[in-house]
């Protein structure tokens, strides 16, 4: 493994983690949006708020991590992607601003009109942001971002069948992860009605995602043949693993094992992300820019590897502390405050 491949693999771990944690936070906003009126939506919204409140900012940083590793280690790829895809990137960034600010502001006002406004903008931008990020993934995966500055078409690079598929799958996958995780959270709160609520939604969205994936096969075959060929050859084991894990998570939910279903759901999404990487390797930007050609010099890559190892040694235990603190107090508070 070269230094460039090692850095890329670590970056991809970061992207996967962003999808699994940051993605679930977006998905929580999706369910907030669909939770209905003030009265009816109160209980699920409270669980959502409780689950993402302490962790969303930390989960969001995985995206920053991916960006800084990409631009330092593979500068031409970052410049090409960001300049050609500036429109969906701007829209995603504004979505993140609306979402993060609204979530924080919602705590800090007691006026109902403003709470509604902030709640609505949190929920709405939780859906649009992963959609635009998905169109970006679709643009890169279908080879519509040529190397060079703004060398691709700023419109059709992300308004195309593969990008639309990417956007819809991103929103769906976020909603699926969130529903599966929230089942597990509801169980920790011993809240059976919320468990049933999110279990039904998790199963429906999982089936929908399966259907979209079937349509997606035809879309990719016609619109992104190079990616399609990679997915059905080298990427096939991972794609099959994703299907198996997805079906497994549904079965586990049906058998009331939300804790295990959470693991299976995360594996299903992880396998797709790595299937994409395997299918596209060795190209960062199909069909011409390879990982080696885009990589920064050895001195930079070595400095990156050192700082990634040291950084991980600081960040990973801190994250574990954060998550265990709030997982543990879930079960503690639910003992005292039954509702």
């Amino acid at each position: 493994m070269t230094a460039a491949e090692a850095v890329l693999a670590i970056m991809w771990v970061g992207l996967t983690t962003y999808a699994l944690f940051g993605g679930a936070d977006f998905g929580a906003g999706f369910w907030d949006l669909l939770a209905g009126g003030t009265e009816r939506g109160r209980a699920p919204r409270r669980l959502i708020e409780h689950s993402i409140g302490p962790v969303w900012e930390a989960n969001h940083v995985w995206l920053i991590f991916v960006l800084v590793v990409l631009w330092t280690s593979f500068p031409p790829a970052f410049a090409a992607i960001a300049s050609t895809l500036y429109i969906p990137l701007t829209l995603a960034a504004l979505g993140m601003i609306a979402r993060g600010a609204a979530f924080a502001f919602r705590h800090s006002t007691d006026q109902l009109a403003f709470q509604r406004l902030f709640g609505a903008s949190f929920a709405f931008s939780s859906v649009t942001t992963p959609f635009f990020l998905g169109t970006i993934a679709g643009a890169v995966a279908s080879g519509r971002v040529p190397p060079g500055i703004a060398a691709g078409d700023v419109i059709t690079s992300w308004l195309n069948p593969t990008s639309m598929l990417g956007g819809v799958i991103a929103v769906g996958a976020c909603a699926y992860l969130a529903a599966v995780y929230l089942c597990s959270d509801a169980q920790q709160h011993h809240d059976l009605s919320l468990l049933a609520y999110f279990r039904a939604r998790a199963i429906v969205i999982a089936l929908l995602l399966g259907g979209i994936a079937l349509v997606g096969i035809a879309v990719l075959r016609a619109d992104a043949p190079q990616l399609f060929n990679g997915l059905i050859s080298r990427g096939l084991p991972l794609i099959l693993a994703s299907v198996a894990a997805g079906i497994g998570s549904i079965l586990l939910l049906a058998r009331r094992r939300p804790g295990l279903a959470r693991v299976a759901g995360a594996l299903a999404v992880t396998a797709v992300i790595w299937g994409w990487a395997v299918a596209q390797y060795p190209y960062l930007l199909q069909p011409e820019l390879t990982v080696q050609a885009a990589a920064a010099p050895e001195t930079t890559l070595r400095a990156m590897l050192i700082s990634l190892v040291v950084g991980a040694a600081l960040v990973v235990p801190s994250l574990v502390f954060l998550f265990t603190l709030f997982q543990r107090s879930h079960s503690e508070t639910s003992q005292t405050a039954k509702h």
Partner: protein
Amino acid sequence: MEALGMSEILALAVPSDLFPARMQMALSLGWHIVVACFGVGFPAMVVFAEWRSHPRGGKDSDKDMDALAHTWAKAMGVLFAVGAVSGTILSFEMGMLWPGLMARFGQIYGFPFTLEGFAFFIESIFVGVYLYGWNRLPPRIHLLSGLPMIAAGVAGAFFVVAANGWMNTPTGFEIRNGQVVNTDPWAAMFNPSTASQSVHMILAAVMVTGFGVASVYAVGMLRGRSDRYHRIGLLVPLTVAAVAAPIQIGVGDWIANVVAKYQPGKLAAMEGLYQSGTGVPLSMGGIYVDDRLVGAIEIPYGLSLLIHHDPNGFVAGLDRVPPGLRPPVNVTHLSYNVMVSIGFALLGLAAWLAWAWWRRRDIPRTPWFLRAVALSGLAAVVALEAGWVATEVGRQPWIVYEIQLTRDAVSTAPGLRFGFYLVLAVYIVLTVMTAYVLRRLTGAHEASIAPQEPELEEQRVGGGT
């Protein structure tokens, strides 16, 4: 086909989007820098207030300190959240607006941002622990969880400013036949500007936070609420800022010397100096027209003294810089003057407080003192923005000083300016909403409980979302 047509129209309509790109960067960075200051300066103040509130030496816990710590923590939480997301768009903009910079120099320039990413990670994690863990952790552990938050905020500022310092004094690479070779990201991070610029920025963050928070309580006291809660709410942050103010003046002298040595053209623009020479006066104010500063107040030998501590020291003027490569003088000179003037005014305020404290162990009795403190928060923000404008505009027309022109780094994508209009609209709404929420926080301390605790959720979110 229709979409293709649209891109062509965009391309025809817009020959160059350099100006909108610069304005978008200025807007989003100029906004972020203010909230980022609170991310650097606030954690230490919140943790200090919590520490002083804990019961000690047989005494009960300090209720006023406790209430202040909780209110400040809530404000810090809101500012940190908007800082996190307003910082994200900046990282997108690095590539959306300046792909020429990133494609060529990301391998060097990007490295401190990677370290900053980790600092931001640590700060985000411990802000979550600190805000939501208030009633879930033992008091001592909770207080300790504030320490990584403080350290990471300061470290993050250092790394970001190191990257900016590299744009001013690029090191850690060579250019051979137009190719960037022999890259050394560590040398790039510790470029000649890093030390002075980062100390200057961290002190600025402390001053913005200190004067900013104190001004809120000064307004409260002017409205007649001069209970102990308001008095310590004013005194704690004001003392911190007052200690930073004189140090900042000294650091200002240090940074001016670094600029004079490595970026003489920028220094000349900051001082509005055309003619190189010895025994150069210090010029304040004035308008720069036809290579001359008109209407400025001059202090004889002032600039030579400042830069060389010698009245006959030589200072290079803009005449040494080719006409096409000179920065915009008026913007640079005036914003520099504004920063320095406010810096000295804030030093005066700090001295006033110190004098009254030394004489009577109390803040000055006159309402004029409270009025001055009430203004000081805004003044510190203006000084911050002015200093940032002086350093960024003074670097023009270079994005990487004497290596790459800003216009060579800007994206050539069509329609870039529409992105600016959209970002502008969103930031106007964001500004209004942030101001509204912070105002409500300052008025609501009586009802204050642990910052983001479940009781609050029950009480407030219950109303609907």
